[in-house]
């Protein structure tokens, strides 16, 4: 009895870890955009929702194989990222942050309503039957392992992009001194657009991983949008390393909370921890105490 109990706890811990990978990927996109452009895309999870629909239509309805369908969906959300910046953010870059929040918040409702109009409110899924893997007495969902693996690969790719390319270096530099970028020969507007496209594409990659496990519907963004924001704030908005760590902390809390009670309690606990930490370290877990 003792022993079985431990194994289930281990399973919960591992599931928390796997879930954390996808959350880390989600928060990376949001943090990247905030770090560079200083704008929070409230509608980020809704872009993920469009990515999930894209894969659903391309793969489940039009029969395009899953990998090309996923790549197309990523390209689509990348294009959405471009449009969000070009049409919504760029014209109001100089205005107060609250206006930018309201604009992307408005976009959230627009995208939700648009999806409802186009596709109705029914839940749709890919209908994939991915196996459950057994290792000793432990059971893992293949979909989760795959999602974790791809999320890690995606994050490594972003790391290499940010550290090994000129534009990536500029993306890291721009938040440290915006004005001086001109002297380096950097067109800041281009850096903003590239960042928005990368951020949008990351939403698409996250969509590919989420659609393996969850149904898509116009309000699906609500089920992981808030936790993504909480992760970003907990890690310190714009701090990609902080976000990465916070994603795993919260996913473990949710998973272990869900193990001892219901999954909903896991979320309640995670938000409670978040609020407490915000009282102690308002600038995020990695900030120095003020």
């Amino acid at each position: 009895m003792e022993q079985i109990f431990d194994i289930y706890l281990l399973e919960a811990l591992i599931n928390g870890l796997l879930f954390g990978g996808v959350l880390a990927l989600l928060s990376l996109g949001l943090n990247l955009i905030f770090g560079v452009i200083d704008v929070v895309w409230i509608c980020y999870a809704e872009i993920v929702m469009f990515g999930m629909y894209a894969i659903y239509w391309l793969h489940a309805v039009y029969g395009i194989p899953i990998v090309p369908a996923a790549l197309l969906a990523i390209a689509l959300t990348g294009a959405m990222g471009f449009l969000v910046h070009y049409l919504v953010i760029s014209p109001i870059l100089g205005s107060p942050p609250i206006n930018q929040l309201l604009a992307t918040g408005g976009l959230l409702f627009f995208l939700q309503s648009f999806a409802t109009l186009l596709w109705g409110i029914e839940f749709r899924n890919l209908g994939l039957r991915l196996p459950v893997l057994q290792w000793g007495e432990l059971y893992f969902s293949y979909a989760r392992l795959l999602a974790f693996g791809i999320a890690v690969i995606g994050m490594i790719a972003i790391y290499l992009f940010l550290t090994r390319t000129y534009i990536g270096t500029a993306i890291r530099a721009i938040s440290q001194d915006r004005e001086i970028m001109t002297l380096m020969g950097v067109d800041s507007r281009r850096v903003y657009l590239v960042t928005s496209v990368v951020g949008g594409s990351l939403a698409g990659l996250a969509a590919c991983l989420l659609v393996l496990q969850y149904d898509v519907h116009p309000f699906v963004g609500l089920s992981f949008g808030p936790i993504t924001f909480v992760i970003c704030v907990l890690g310190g908005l714009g701090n990609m390393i902080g976000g990465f760590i916070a994603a795993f902390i919260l996913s473990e809390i949710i998973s272990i909370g869900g193990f001892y009670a219901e999954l909903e309690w896991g979320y309640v606990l995670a938000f409670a921890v978040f609020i407490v930490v915000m009282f102690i370290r308002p600038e995020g877990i990695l900030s120095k105490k003020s």
Partner: protein
Amino acid sequence: MLDVQNANAGYDTFQALFDVSLEVNAGEAVAVIGPNGAGKTTLMRMISGLIPIRAGEIRMEGRSLSEVRPHEIVELGIAHVPENRRLFPRMTVEDNLRMGAFTKTARPQFRERLDYIYELFPRMKERRLQYAGTMSGGEQQMCAIGRALMSKPKLLLMDEPSAGLAPVIVQQVFDLVRRIRQEGYTVLIVEQNVQQVLQVVDRAYLLEAGSLQTSGTAEELLASDQVREAYMGL
């Protein structure tokens, strides 16, 4: 090489430069001196495109700077070491240098230029993986100069490279400026250390309240009563 004609510039409703005309010939080192708030930094910022020119014209090797967008000015061969250095503090020395080679023309020469900078400033090679913001003031100034040189400029603008440094280091900075001249760069430098900067430049302009007052060779200005009284406390 650089030709500024009747240039005006300012901030919002405030005009900081009035009909400023100056030129810098290839191979020369030229200083702009003047009291605090005279508009020296504004002049440098206008040349490198950080603030727009309101009237007049700036030409680099005959090409009007108004023909290109601000971030393209560096590709015409103008690099700017800004006031207060303005390094990217939470990036390594090498990443800072990489940013200096951002332009399409500079990228293919990155390795070559990096070796050149490390040879010029061996200290930067030692510190290459250190965060720029954690270095001493003198080291940061080297890094800022190195970053500007990464683009292989023809003209180097330097805004008060000796500001905020200890006297010994100030001396080193002026030695650096000499070396940079020997390397063949044309230099336009703003300095508060009037006595010292006049030892390393060929000519100088005196800027006061946004207008150029006098100009002349370094010797002439060193000998002028106007400059001696106001800026060298003699």
